[in-house]
């Protein structure tokens, strides 16, 4: 069932997108209708104006989802499931032709030859200007000048069209001819092509680790794939063409001989260290430029015009053969499209880092699958499940091992016949260590539970300790003055600043992470309780006092209810900040948790998993906030109405 759903995710996306569009339009129509109804009897600024309006929430959600579908190419995949495969075939052609394009103005503004001439001439100028006069004798300097000017003449000769060998001209013509033939083939259309069985058996787009199936699955794809294969030969031929004017052959031999002569003199060892280093470096610099010029990669500019034109023709033919695919790509696939690398085709632009909604759901279900052996969970731990927790583990947690050490006597030693008969002290140690069976209780387990558990424990401690302290600080001079410097000093410290200390103080277990979150929650709770308590109207306190209320009654029945709105707002904020700190807290010695999953997913650039964790955290934060809103509504319905 799940498999079937997963394989047909594109189809479901198509339905969902339609529903979202319908929902969007319908909610706007409804919203406008409602707005007309209530427009007259509402005053601007009246809080009642913001009540209700669920249809606007619907349209907001629909907008968000549609944007997500669009920029992740989810809409494109839903309605054009073969488009990416076709784009991949076009990208194959692009990849193959790119070495040719890189040498031509059509791909890089200038001819590669022009850039090489400019760069090498510049370097020759620099080398000539930097001739170390102290290291070479003046006859040698003259020789070196002749040498560099000889190297320079290589550039001059290569750039002259008259010097282009007939062989090179012939090869260039051949390339133009072959490229034109490929253009013709592209323009010929794709009728009669049919994909191979192997290609059709490939997993669908997005259902495996490899995003886009690489073998062509459509007739158009077959056409491009075939052309790309042929173009590869043309590109190889192009790469191998060299321009060796006959004049250069003699110059190359001459320069080589001169450089060898200089090297020989350098190696004679009759120079001091500095001179030697200068001489070697200079000759090497000249040789380096020479070596780049002797391989004949500089061509006269107009000799490549034909190839440039043929590539332009091929581009036009490509656009023609793409047909409707070009329009679809421009509308539904925002970004640079598909790029073929050595091994596979990948989505570029927003689709690279923004996974499709359906893929995120699929990854979520994989993660949520409690069957660890069946590939579910993450790093051997389920997302959220339950397990039998041995009661002995709890006993182990709460009883320290040294209790057994305190009991008088010695631990048992093994007897002469190799048997062991444990005494009471041994049993006590086993009990303290939890090495016995006391039954099991069901307990929650998994990454999600671990994260929630950490946040809840930290919040619980924060509320339990922070609220009373805050209330007392609001009413007592001693509490206020004694704790004020302490709290105010630690409160502004960002929680992450504690992180380096946590590890060495608390170790790698949960308590360190809980402590970090507690630090966050505690400060917020103290401040909010204190503000709430000190904000109580004096008239109310005086009134209850004159009616005979004890201190305790004033605290419990007047100050606490007055501080409650502030406290609950504090809880709401604290939960939000705790979630914010969680990812960082779980970097410290991560073993489980949502933040841990995200950290590890980053190291392998698994964007689907990263988004799943982001969404889980968002959803849980929202859930907590909704719960808090409900609690606020129930416990302090008078808020904002005084």
């Amino acid at each position, binding site marked *: 069932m799940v498999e079937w759903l997963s394989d047909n995710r594109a189809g479901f996306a198509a339905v969902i997108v339609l529903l979202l569009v319908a929902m969007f339009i319908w909610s706007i129509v409804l919203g406008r209708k409602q707005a007309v109804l209530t427009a007259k009897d509402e005053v601007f600024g009246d809080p009642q104006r913001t009540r209700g309006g669920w249809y606007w929430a619907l349209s907001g959600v629909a907008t968000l989802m549609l944007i997500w579908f669009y920029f992740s190419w989810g809409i494109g995949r839903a309605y054009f499931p073969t488009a990416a495969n076709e784009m991949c075939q076009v990208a194959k052609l692009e990849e193959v032709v790119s070495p040719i394009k890189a040498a031509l103005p059509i791909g890089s503004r200038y001819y590669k030859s022009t850039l090489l001439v400019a760069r090498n001439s510049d370097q020759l100028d620099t080398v000539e200007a930097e001739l170390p006069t102290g290291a070479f004798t003046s006859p040698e300097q003259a020789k070196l000048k002749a040498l560099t000017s000889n190297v320079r003449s290589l550039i001059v000769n290569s750039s002259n069209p008259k010097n282009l060998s007939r062989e090179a001209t012939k090869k260039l013509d051949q390339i133009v001819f072959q490229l034109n033939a490929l253009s013709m083939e592209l323009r010929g259309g794709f009728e009669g092509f049919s994909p191979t069985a192997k290609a059709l058996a490939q997993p669908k787009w997005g259902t495996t680790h490899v995003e886009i199936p690489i073998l062509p699955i459509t007739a158009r794809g077959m056409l491009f794939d075939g052309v790309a294969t042929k173009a590869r030969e043309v590109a190889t031929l192009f790469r191998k063409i060299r321009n060796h004017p006959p004049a250069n052959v003699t110059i190359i031999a001459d320069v080589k001989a001169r450089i060898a002569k200089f090297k020989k003199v350098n190696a004679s060892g009759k120079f001091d260290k500095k001179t030697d280093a200068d001489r070697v470096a200079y000759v090497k610099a000249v040789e380096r430029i020479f070596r*780049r010029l002797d391989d004949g990669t500089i061509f006269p500019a107009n000799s490549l015009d034909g190839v440039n034109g043929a590539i332009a023709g091929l581009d036009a033919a490509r656009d023609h053969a793409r047909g409707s695919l070009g329009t679809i790509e421009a509308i539904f696939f925002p970004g640079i499209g598909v790029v073929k690398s050595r091994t596979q085709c990948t989505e570029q632009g927003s689709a690279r880092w923004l996974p499709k909604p359906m893929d995120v759901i699929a990854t979520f279900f994989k993660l949520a699958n409690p069957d660890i052996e069946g590939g579910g969970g993450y790093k051997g731990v389920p997302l959220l499940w339950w397990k039998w927790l041995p009661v002995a583990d709890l006993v182990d947690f709460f009883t320290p091992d040294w209790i057994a050490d305190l009991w008088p006597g010695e631990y048992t030693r093994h007897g002469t016949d190799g048997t062991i008969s444990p005494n009471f002290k041994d049993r006590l140690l086993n009990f303290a260590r939890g090495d016995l069976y006391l039954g099991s209780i069901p307990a929650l387990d998994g990454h999600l539970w671990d994260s929630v558990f950490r946040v809840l424990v930290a919040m619980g401690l924060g509320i339990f300790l922070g609220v009373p302290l805050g209330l007392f600080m609001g009413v007592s001079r001693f509490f206020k003055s004694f704790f004020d410097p302490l709290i105010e000093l630690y409160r502004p410290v960002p929680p992450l600043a504690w992180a380096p200390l946590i*590890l060495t103080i608390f170790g790698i277990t949960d308590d360190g992470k809980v402590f970090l979150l507690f630090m966050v929650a505690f400060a917020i709770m103290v401040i909010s309780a204190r503000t709430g308590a000190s904000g109580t109207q004096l008239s109310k306190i005086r009134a209850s006092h004159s009616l005979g209320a004890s201190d305790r009654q004033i605290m419990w029945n007047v100050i606490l209810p007055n501080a409650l709105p502030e406290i609950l707002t504090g809880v709401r904020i604290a939960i939000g900040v705790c979630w914010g700190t969680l990812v960082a807290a779980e970097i*410290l010695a991560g073993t489980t948790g949502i933040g841990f999953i995200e*950290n590890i997913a980053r190291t392998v650039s698994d964007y689907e998993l990263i988004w799943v964790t982001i969404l889980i955290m968002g959803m849980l934060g929202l859930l907590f906030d909704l719960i808090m809103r409900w609690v606020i509504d129930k416990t302090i319905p008078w808020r904002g109405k005084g």
Partner: protein
Amino acid sequence: MRLIMKRALMASAGAMVFAMSVSAQAADKVNVAFFLEWATPNQIAKVDKTYDKAMGVGVNWTDFKTGVAMTEAMLSGDIDISYSQGLAPFVTAIQQGAPLKMVGIAVVYEANDCFVKNGSGIDASNASELEGKTVAVPLNTMADYAFRRYMAHLKVDTSTMKIVDQAPPDGAQSLTDGLVDMACIFGGASSKAAGEVGTPIMTKQQKMDAGIGSFDVISVTEKFATENPELVKTFLEVTEEANVAWKATDAQIAKVAKDAGMKVPTTKKQMADFIFPSAKEQLEQYFNKGGIAASAASSLGLVFSGDSDGSKIAKTLDGSFLK
């Protein structure tokens, strides 16, 4: 409606033209990623601007903390060449379909060590006692790879262990505090700290006998390699020359130490364990068919994701620029 369509089309066409014009810029500057605190001879060429002179373009060096960050920067187009990227981030990037290429081997070094707490009485001979113990490992790094290779070699079942994901400094701290029984570490300072309280599970000789080693690679984006093959070639050439010229003299070490942001003794010690293979060695041992590069990459892919296709990774290895 038609107007909107037209506008949308024009906007996307404009975006495409923009993207193309960006991609078609000729290299007037080459951006190279490197690690601080990772001393290599080519830093002399970096400081002396030999790269800039030889390549004829400005070379812009940016330091990174992790190889993953290098991959991310290369994908976003800000970096053209990564010098000394770990094999682990390179392979994971390839598995995610990143258009990168391995064009050279930067440094060959001893596999990162896993330190067993002194006094636990565990070494290579009774390593199976590690089962059920807690281990600090920086997941998905070369240290993680080394850890898994050691455990496989020593026949220890890692599924019984509690593996804690910790960065090397944290792992060393946890080992010192006795919170973990073993910590796998990379980096000079952290290894030193862990070495104070622990002993490597396998000695240098044992590692060599078992064939467990690591190396860092020189990776480039496919785009850069296609458009500027001569620059890649010159980059490797200058690196090679710097490696050949390396005599570990005091002046050289001082220069490298300053650039790497380390002290001279630490630099000396770190570089003593490094091997910088020559272009010839790289071609004959690493980039040949079934060479070390391909086999290490595929075994690493297998360790991390379990569904590694060795032939796929082999396609991204390209020794042609070394020739």
